[in-house]
């Protein structure tokens, strides 16, 4: 009873994370929930892969992290987009649209 799942292309996960964080600061667990919610069960990502990706984005200064109280009043690490991250997201989204559009055209017409 395996469902078809899409492999995440390298870098795509990071693009998705940036997109999710555009609406405001979130902690890791929330991000995970949203990712599953938005993509349904199609994109299979384990939390074990999310955290390294977040740390890599932080290292590149596309997001920054702050410790703060979560909704159930415990300390959690919140991530939010930096200005550089916002720029990166726009650039990558444009590139992605261009790319996927082209692929879609080719697949449709060929």
């Amino acid at each position: 009873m395996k469902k078809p799942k899409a492999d995440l292309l390298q870098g795509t996960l990071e693009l998705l994370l940036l997109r999710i964080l555009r609406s405001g600061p979130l902690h890791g667990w929330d991000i995970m929930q949203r990712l599953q919610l938005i993509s349904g069960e199609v994109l299979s990502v384990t939390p074990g892969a999310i955290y390294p990706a977040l740390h890599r984005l932080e290292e590149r200064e596309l997001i920054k992290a702050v410790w703060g109280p979560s909704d159930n009043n415990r300390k959690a690490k919140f991530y939010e987009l930096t200005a550089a991250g916002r720029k990166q997201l726009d650039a990558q989204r444009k590139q992605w649209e261009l790319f996927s559009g082209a692929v879609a055209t080719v697949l449709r017409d060929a």
Partner: protein
Amino acid sequence: MFGKLRRRLRALFKRDKLEQELADELRYHLERDAEQNLKSGMDADEAYYAALKSFGSVDLSKEECRDARSVKFMEDLIRDIRYSIRLLIKNPAFSLVALITLTLGIGANTAIFSLLDAVLLKSLPVPEPERLVLFGTGESGGLTDGFPNESTDLFSYPFFQDLRQHNEVFKDLGALLSMTWTVHGTVGAQDPEPKRMQVQLVSGAYFQTLGINAGLGRLITDEDDKVLGMHPVAVISNALWKQRLGGETSPVGSKIIIDKTEYTVIGVVPKNFTGTTVGSAPDVWIPLAMEPQLPPAHWNGRNVKDAQSLHLIGRLKDGVSVAQANAAVSVAFNRFLQDWAGPQPSEENVQNMQHAFVQLTPAGKGISGVRSEFALPLKILMVVVGVVLLISCANIANLLLARAAVRKKEIALRLALGARRWSLIRQLLTESLILAAVAGTAGIALAWWGSNVLVAMASDGPRPLPLDVTPNFRILTFSLIASVVSALVFGATPALSATRVDLNSTLKDGKGSLHGTSQSRIGKALVVAQVALSLILMVGAGLFVRTLINLQDIPTGFNEKNAVLFQIDTATSGYKESQLANLQVEVEDRVRRVPGVEAAAFSFLTFNQGGWHSPIFTSDQTPPQGDATVVRQNTVGQDYFKAMGIPLVAGRTFSQLDSEKSQKVAVVSETMAQRFYPNSSPLGKHFGKGGDKRGEFEIIGVVKDVKYQSLRERPRSLVYYSIKQMPEPVSNFILRISADSQSVIPTVRRTLREVNTKLPVDDVVSLEDHIARSLVQQNLIARLATFFGLLALLLASIGLYGVLSYSVARRRNEIGIRMALGASTYDVLKTVLRSGMGLTLIGLIIGVGGSLALTRLVSTLLFGVKPTDVTTFVIVSLTLIVVAFVACYIPARRATRVDPLIALRYD
């Protein structure tokens, strides 16, 4: 930007905190998951387990998060360093041996390199030194009056002026006297005592050509070098300013009195500038226009075409190549020579002109006679210490190999638990690099001290050659590279071989197998190489030592025992030439009467102080043709032959009756007598120093041949003149003293002071030491080669000892079984000795072959011994065999003490 830096620093130094945060972050996630699972109806354990399961591997995730940090590499490095230091401290014996050998190796290399750097590599501290060229090679110094007939190093002032006026290829052109004068002068007002100083005469454009500015005040310019004798100005060195004028207030305006001339200090050279001649550091620079005022020689070459005494330095115009400049200079030189030879040149000069040329050489590293003398010895020593370092590296590699074998099980375990091989290699290499870093630092300190000792050893006088060997950027870079390369050389093989482990057999067995492993094979190869290399070094050392002994055995012709050489500056004290002779006679007379003094005499030259060559013209004999009429000459006091112990063969030596008013007389050497008068007695014959004065001197005596300029020279034609008849401001004063009268020297000093309080006396040295100084280069290389040869032998025997000890320890079992089965002590001894001496012999054979191939390269430095000298080879080989035998015997002896019962149970 700051955020990044802060995060990195945090990552490096607050690692624990970051780890905690990472753990918290992931735990928070798991707990939230678990809470959700609880809500959906699982029990507590189940909820937590499900959360864990859906997360994936927590540890892997953590590791990947850590990898995301940019300082991961640094973190690993710090961890490796900590671990390595712990290991090194845990094995103090190993660490100490490794550190000492490596420190010696790196220190020796750095010290020799410092000297090499000072002599061969260092550029002058001037802008664009590569644009400076020297006329000629700079190997000659002094004054020559012969018509140029080969590659020319020395030039006259008229040529220099001619060239400057017609110059199109040089931005600037400067001249300096090809030597410095040692004078005594008073500096400043406080200290009336004349002090020794080196004076460099330079043309007005000298400093401008170099392109340097004054450290204080101003430097000499063309304006200071216009009218002969009219510019008493001086530029002083930083050292002189500091030592004699306090170095606090500006010295500009201070007075320096040399002889009768008062010079005004106009400036100080830049701090790092010590002149343009390597191995010479002037204290004072004075314009060439003052040359006639400057003692001792009072030369005046201003308008004399054949007074060639200058070195010329040019700075090339932009865009002009050395070849273009050389072509232009050649044209000018040729024109100048044609002008000199006149409209009807003699046939000889036509010949000379065809062979005379000027070669421009790079001057950016300074002018150097020291360079040609020491270049080859220094390069050889560099190779020697390089080999010593290699041998020490081989030793440490062997120690590491042995230790890697001990750690084999640990390494196998770590590999089995998933450690990456690369990270193990990295850790092992870190250990080597730490060793090298510590040894490198200690080595630099050792070298700093050592290179000054080397400079003192390389100096042919009581004062060390002024060579700057303080560690500079180049030297430190060299040591760094030497250290890192050594670490890789001795660390790489053990690290690679230690991590190439067959997991199964190692873990099961626990011990290395009994058969020769690859590690012990490498170890043996290293020992063979060590033996071979140390043999080559020792053969070289042996050849150099024999050369030195051969040179020391050459008879000088004079009696060097019980003779003392004083340097007395009779030139600076303000005497006129007419008074000079009286002063010298008075000094000789007074000192001769000091009890314990047998003879005392001045002389112009005393062995190995350069030469005075010029042609003579005999009156009554067909002279030998061409060059043969050129003879060596010396001017000496009345008792010179007695003082030096030169035996008289025929006639008489100088006496009180030979005065400035009587017939001029000369004493000649035996070789000269035979060469000029093969069939008759030279006594009573006449010769002159010019073609028109053939009757000037009468030969009154013949003395035994002596060495004149060097120990290696053939017997020379040598003429001695009487100093009374040819007064000259000479400074050599030789005393013959009775055997037990070392204490006369203070008395003599007192007597000299009584004659004239201003008579400066500097060096007092025994004649034996004076002669030994002529062998300073051979002495240096023989002593250092021996030292390093023995060091190499010691290191090689430590290597041999180490490999055998290790193999005995590893084979305890086998030895125990053999003994249990009835092998005698002798059998065991023989087995171990055979394997050790086998390695030695292989190394010996390779070493002998290598020596035969290599010693040819040093043949120009040898004297009286062939590069393939059998005696040297045999003695060195025997020495090596004996030492190697001792190194093998100790572990072999230990093997015989193996108790079979204990050895067998031990496993």
